[in-house]
């Protein structure tokens, strides 16, 4: 069915557009934009009234854990993509640390097949860097690319060995794939569950220093200079890492990075009373780090916001802090947390939309991120001031591990359109 999204504020930074008007969608692609277009549509076009809302290119999450194959009790492609749609995302990049890991075309094809059948949004698989994510030898990166992977990563784990990292960068360059690194020197982090600092000292929890992340960022930047390959830092969390990426960009190196909404809004204080929902890797850090992350997002050092949506069940989380698994869900809380940055004046709406849509598309060279004519109709409609309370019952994800449970939040997606079809819609838009 053709759609007309009427009366919204259309923000399309890739085309320098920020204006009120009607967006036309025909046969799954953007057909036009302008004021008053709704008046001329045919009777078979469904008109959706979105006055007061923003209409933006569909949000793209560069970093999601869908847990399928192998850990479907936490999440699967169906529930994860439904959660994505509810969060306003029209596409997610699925990380390879599944069971079995996505290090062969067979697993990539399984993910794509499942996504085609039950996926509510587009799923772009990220393939492994190394076989079994063991960090010892290269995975079949060429074949992973051919099967449909859009990037490679061992996420969850770093590639510790510098020689292997160098070769992975060189090899990935041949297939024009960006390499995404989870930066953590495991010898420095040494099993620490929190950020090393006064909060961890008070709590008596073994902690990891920020240098565990930044020392690897520094090493990898030198390897990027050596190989010229495209390199993306996953979930950057420390002031020092931001400084290093800023410097690398100044040197003209093909380095990009992302930050999570939770690292932008919480400090390690969230772990002071052993709340396992706030336990993540990299850990939440201090106020100075949060300030540096926000400034990095503002000045463009940090290119994108990505959720690192990491579902875990109560079996993994309802245990002693040091035993609990790392990670929190994030697809359904990303937008209100990101909108806080606009409300405080850190980002303009256009900057925010770029960080959540155009920039992610650019980094992984994905379709989308813009609303030009002929583009696939991936559109997110956002009510930036909608007040709601984050409660367990409202999550579409199979898991509930979020430190924002019970919090009053402002802003949410009211319509998520993928290829011209409604992937998610609020009550009032349902037929």
């Amino acid at each position, binding site marked *: 069915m053709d759609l007309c999204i009427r009366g919204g504020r259309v923000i399309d930074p890739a085309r320098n557009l920020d204006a009120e008007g009607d967006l036309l969608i025909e046969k799954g692609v953007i057909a036009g934009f302008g004021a008053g277009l709704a008046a001329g549509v045919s009777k078979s076009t469904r008109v959706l009234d979105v006055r007061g809302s923003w209409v933006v290119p569909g949000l793209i999450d560069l970093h999601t854990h869908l847990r399928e194959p192998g850990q479907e009790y936490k999440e699967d492609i169906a529930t994860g993509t439904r959660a994505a749609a509810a969060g306003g995302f029209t596409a997610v990049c699925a990380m390879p640390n599944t069971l079995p890991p996505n290090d062969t075309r067979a697993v990539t094809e399984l993910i794509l097949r499942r996504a085609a059948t039950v996926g509510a949004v587009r799923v772009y698989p990220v393939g492994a860097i190394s076989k079994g994510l063991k960090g010892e030898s290269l995975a079949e990166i060429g074949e992973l690319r051919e099967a449909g992977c859009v990037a490679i990563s061992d996420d969850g784990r770093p590639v510790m060995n510098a020689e292997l990292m160098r070769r992975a960068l060189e090899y990935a360059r041949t297939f024009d794939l960006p390499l995404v690194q989870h930066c953590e020197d495991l010898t420095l982090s040494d099993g620490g569950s929190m950020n090393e600092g006064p909060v*961890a*000292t008070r709590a*008596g929890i073994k*902690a990891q220093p920020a240098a565990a992340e930044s020392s690897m960022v520094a090493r990898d930047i030198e390897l990027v200079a050596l190989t010229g390959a495209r390199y993306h830092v996953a979930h950057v969390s420390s002031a020092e890492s931001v400084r290093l990426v800023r410097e690398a960009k100044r040197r003209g190196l093909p380095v990009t990075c992302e930050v999570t909404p939770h690292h932008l809004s919480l400090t390690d204080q969230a772990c002071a009373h052993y709340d396992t929902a706030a336990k993540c890797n990299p850990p939440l850090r201090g106020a100075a780090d949060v300030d540096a992350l926000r400034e990095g997002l503002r000045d463009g050092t940090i290119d994108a916001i990505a959720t690192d949506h990491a579902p875990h069940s109560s079996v993994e989380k*309802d*245990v*002693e*802090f*040091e*035993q609990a698994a790392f990670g929190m869900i994030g697809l359904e809380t990303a937008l209100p947390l990101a909108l806080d940055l606009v409300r405080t004046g850190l980002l303009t709406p256009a900057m925010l939309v770029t960080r959540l849509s155009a920039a992610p598309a650019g980094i992984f060279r994905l379709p989308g991120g813009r609303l030009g004519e002929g583009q696939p109709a991936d559109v997110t409609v956002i009510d930036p001031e909608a007040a709601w309370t984050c409660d367990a019952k409202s999550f579409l994800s199979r898991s509930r591990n979020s430190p924002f449970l019970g919090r009053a939040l402002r802003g949410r997606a009211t319509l998520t359109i993928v290829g011209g079809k409604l992937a998610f819609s609020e009550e009032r838009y349902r037929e």
Partner: protein
Amino acid sequence: MSLFPHRHLLGTETLTAEDLTMLLDLGERFLEIAQRPIKKVPTLRGKTVINLFLEPSTRTRTSFEIAAKRLSADAINISGAASSTVKGETLLDTARNLDAMAPDVVVLRHAQAGAAEMLAGRISARVVNAGDGAHEHPTQALLDCSTIRAHKGRLAGLEVAICGDITHSRVARSNIFALTALGAHVRVAGPRTLLPPGLPEMVEGLGAPLGVHDRIEPAIEGADVIMMLRIQKERIGTGLFPNTREYSRYFGLNDRRLALAKPDAIVMHPGPINRGVEIEPSVADGPQAVILDQVSRGVAIRMAVLYLLAGGETGEN
């Protein structure tokens, strides 16, 4: 008798000087019971205390058991190796199952920080933290304060040196909070590899600033109290320090270093001691050591804690 305004005893971090003094004063009264031929009072008769010790312990567990029994409570001991935790039962399931049997108090020792707080939020019994990982060991700090007060007549204004592996020490953390709140000036010392970041912040707003030293001599100089901490065998030969020989040479309490303190300084240790490593036998067995006194006060302090949580009036409702 004033009300004790806490439902559980999870740590000394949130105890005021009044709370601490109440516990110390009550401990003095219970100390007297150990001198009697019949070391029992009926105060907690009919109450059930479960000692859930999921980490090895001799003195603390025995101390809690004796404390409960001297108050006429029914004390049940569960130790890790003999419990269903070896079958993979989670801490919460273990605690909930025990809670279903309606104990009045669960005393928990656990290898992981935060375990006691986790339990306190989920079961209806009162929870006493007998040591949770590197976080807190409140009854140890209380008996340490009790010992110091008995020997020095006061806590306010005393110079107290805590020396050793601060990073991994719940005894250090609990003592830093309690001693500072009671007016003492605390200095910590240890090899840099065993001093965690953010130590001075621990006492912000609590009392005198915390001194931090990477050699023990400046901490011991002019001290009224020297508290030595045990070096755990697992730490030896790792990146933290090379061996016990180096540790005892540079960080051990011997007669020469002891002479830097005030002439009437007392020497303390939470036990068990590593003779010849953090403390020389001559010092541990010498006239200034009050280590065994700490142990006897431990029972009295634990009686005070159990009494205030399970027996006497509490103000938490």
